[in-house]
């Protein structure tokens, strides 16, 4: 794809940003809102990470050393909620805000005021959720999956419910904005199949969000009714069904998992192609693979529930459906490998993170395939094997792709190059830390250590100590990331508009840093 940018005399001084705090409170600019989302998610990442440090410190050796099990359960729950709803999802929304308009040649998002509201709902929701820390009874401690009836009798559950409702509203508004922008504001000549893969991945993600966020809202509403208004949706003593909760929750929960990985597929495709200096292998098949994964995500939810006592046919169906996902996922991995094959490759920080993503995400995929095998899952289910699995797809998966994206587009956002040496140091510390943390969790999981345990039998002590050391290494390395990003915002070698010699796409045709308003006049797409 090549683009022709028409140069116009811009009058940025007339509609530049406001000064001071009001710029951020009232902004309708997609770049400002993207920045807000990214900083918000970074703050959440550090807070959720601090909770993870607390968890790993408690698990460093058997026995209760630092906290009682109530506190431990609260940390586990809040770590999950903060990382999912405050860390990974807002980071991808931030990237979407920054990149989608620039990649499709649009001046801004379709609904800029709603965009502002979508963002500011998030800090509101998290303030409500975190305020429970200062109440009698404290923060939620029923796990991020909030299974009824444990959650229905828990203190302060109403705050949790309202926080989830507000986050859901924020996500739905953000997703509608993404869909409308992509469908209506593409530059002339940019057909759907010519769209960059990050845009494609977000179009699919946005549809998933619109489909499942209302389901989550339904689940928390029923929970609220059970807890405070005497209904019995999930209370067996009143004729309700606790398993219904799990079906509803995972009907949201499984597509949610792909919401947190599809944008990562898009990002990785861009970066691998750029640093291999070779167009992406199988652009169209990448799109079909993502669509297949998204469709399949709606029919595999009960593989999270193999032990609730389902009939044989249901167990067989969900096993087979889950195994099918390996096919499109495999296609994506093979396409990335084929893009690298016969390229001319350099290994800057974004590329290092992207390749680590491919390898470690695939390891998470392998354990996912093992978990799909129902009879074996009777052993794996709810042990640390599952913890290892989903952290492999979420940390060196989703989180590494976000870091790769930040290094890749940071010069475009700030106009400055980041410090390459520091970036590589950050990569290697993270890569080593993440593997020392999560690989041993496969071992203790197979040996039978259940998840969400504040304390454990002596046979698991050694590998838990290793895991904790790795977690501290990974956790503290992220302060280096913060330092690198802040330093780049304020100083660094000036970036060219192209930034990376192998990069392709409309965002590389505008100046670095990108002007406050881009593509007031749409570019023409040739070819």
């Amino acid at each position, binding site marked *: 794809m090549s683009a022709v940018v028409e140069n116009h005399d811009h009058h940025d001084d007339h509609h530049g940003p406001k000064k001071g705090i009001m710029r951020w409170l009232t902004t309708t600019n997609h770049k400002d809102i993207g920045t807000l989302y990214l900083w918000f998610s970074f703050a959440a990442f550090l807070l959720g990470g601090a909770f993870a440090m607390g968890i790993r410190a408690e698990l460093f050796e058997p026995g209760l050393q630092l906290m009682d099990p109530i506190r431990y359960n609260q940390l586990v729950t809040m770590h999950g909620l903060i990382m999912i709803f405050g860390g990974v999802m807002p980071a991808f929304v931030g990237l979407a805000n920054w990149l989608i308009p620039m990649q499709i040649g649009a001046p801004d998002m379709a609904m800029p005021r709603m965009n502002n509201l979508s963002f500011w709902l998030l800090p509101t929701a998290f303030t409500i959720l975190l305020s429970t820390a200062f109440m009698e009874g404290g923060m939620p*401690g029923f796990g991020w999956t909030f299974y009824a009836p444990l959650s229905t009798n828990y203190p302060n559950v109403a705050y949790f419910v309202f926080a989830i409702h507000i986050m859901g509203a924020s996500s739905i508004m953000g997703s509608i904005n993404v869909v409308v922008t992509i469908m209506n504001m593409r530059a002339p000549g940019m057909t759907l199949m010519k769209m960059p893969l990050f845009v494609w991945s977000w179009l699919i993600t946005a549809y998933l969000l619109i489909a499942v966020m209302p389901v989550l809202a339904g689940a928390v509403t029923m929970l609220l009714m059970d807890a405070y208004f005497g209904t019995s949706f999930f209370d067996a003593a009143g004729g*309700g069904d606790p398993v219904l909760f799990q079906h509803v929750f995972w009907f949201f929960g499984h597509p949610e998992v792909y919401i947190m990985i599809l944008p990562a597929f898009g990002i990785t495709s861009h970066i691998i192609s750029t640093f291999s200096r070779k167009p992406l292998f199988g652009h169209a098949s990448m799109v079909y693979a993502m669509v297949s994964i998204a469709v399949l995500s709606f029919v595999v939810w009960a593989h999270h529930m193999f032990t609730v006592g389902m009939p*044989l046919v249901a167990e067989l169906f969900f096993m087979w459906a889950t*195994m099918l996902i390996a096919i499109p996922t495999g*296609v994506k991995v093979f396409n990335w490998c084929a893009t690298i094959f016969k390229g001319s490759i350099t*290994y800057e920080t974004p590329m290092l993170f992207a390749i680590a993503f491919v390898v470690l995400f695939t390891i998470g995929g392998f354990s996912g395939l*093992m978990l799909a095998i129902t009879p074996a899952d009777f052993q794996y289910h709810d042990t640390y094997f599952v913890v290892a699995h989903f952290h492999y797809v979420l940390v060196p998966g989703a989180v590494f792709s976000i870091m790769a994206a930040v290094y890749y587009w940071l010069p475009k956002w700030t106009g400055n190059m980041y410090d390459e040496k520091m970036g590589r140091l950050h990569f290697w510390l993270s890569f080593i830390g993440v593997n020392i943390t999560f690989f041993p969790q496969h071992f203790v999981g197979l040996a039978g250590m259940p998840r969400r345990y504040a304390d454990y039998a*002596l046979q698991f002590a050694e590998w838990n100590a290793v895991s904790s050391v790795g977690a501290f290494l990974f956790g503290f390395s992220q302060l280096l990331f913060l330092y690198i990003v802040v330093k780049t915002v304020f100083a660094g070698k000036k970036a060219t508009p192209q930034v990376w010699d192998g990069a392709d796409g409309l965002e590389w045709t505008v100046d670095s840093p990108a002007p406050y308003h881009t593509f007031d006049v749409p570019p023409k797409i040739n070819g």
Partner: protein
Amino acid sequence: MAYMKNKLWALILYPVSLFTSADWLDVNMPVGVTDISKEVFDLHMAIFIVVVVIGIVVFGGLFWSMWKYRRSNHKTPAKFTENHTVEILWTIIPTLILIAMAVPASITLKKIYEHEAEEGGIDIQVVGWQWKWQYKYLDEQVGNAPLSFFSNLTTPPDQYEFNRVEKTENYLLEVDEPVVIPVDTPVRFLITSNDVIHSWYMSDFAVKQDAIPGFINVAKTKVNVPGIYRGNCTELCGERHAYMPIVVKAVTQEEYEAWLQEKRELAEQVAYLTEKDWTSEELLATGEEIYETRCAACHQANGAGIAGFYPALAGSGVVMNDKAQQIEILMEGIRGSQMQSFAEQLNEVEMASVITFTRLAWGNDKSGDGEIVIPKDIVEYKENNL
């Protein structure tokens, strides 16, 4: 010099020595002691080997390309973007591998379900409670009810909470009354819950089945090897989720019969003790012990409870002045709260002694009426309310 050399070797070998201890090598699923568990283990190993081989091939190709086509070695990149032959191949080959994995997995799964449906063997109802397991032998009558008992953690708080004494071998994997089953006999576990969802996990049998209120889930097992097997609760069930282990003692048929006989005799003895006259000293001694194992987890050793979760018993109006209501709460539980019914968990003597203990401890006897409860009070309550 030689000394230095030895020190150096010791330093180098130290990490190796760590890895030779048994726990470092405890990195795989247990083979287990039932036919099903062995089959599940084989299935697990087969899939594991398949994914490792795929991993070696794919990552091998990736790393080789990364090295071969680095920029310093390969200046001009190729331009191709598709190749239908390989794309079809890498769709079809994984599909075939998946089918090859799904077939044995489906066969094993079907076998597990057929095994569950078979007639015969003994039935044990397993009930999850916060935070203990109850076992009811449905075919074995003791007095006029099925043989039933609760299985509580016996690891003392000195080991896990205060870390004052060294942790012993079966730390957090030991209970007061293990569930006893005969070997070579099918045993059907009928699993349910009294409060929130728990999960009954015994790795050596390849059994993990959720205990859900309002549902009865079935897990069947036939143990081939006598021994003591230890497992855990695997569904987050609140604060003491990590403190409700499962211990199964698989014994020969003769030992099983002897154990049943012993249980019947014990029940007769309890009936005698209930009728006897008790002094407050005797009740206090038993009561304190029961309080520590059954009540202190929530209401705390000093009776102060945990604000927002568990009410204090020290200074509580009910505990100090309302004997009748206290008996009712212990017998019935409080619906919608975590206070469960102890009617089945404690016999009349235990119930009376623990109530007496709370009424006399922590200064409650000074500020309240100081009345004690004797086993006959509990018998009376049962007669009036059943």
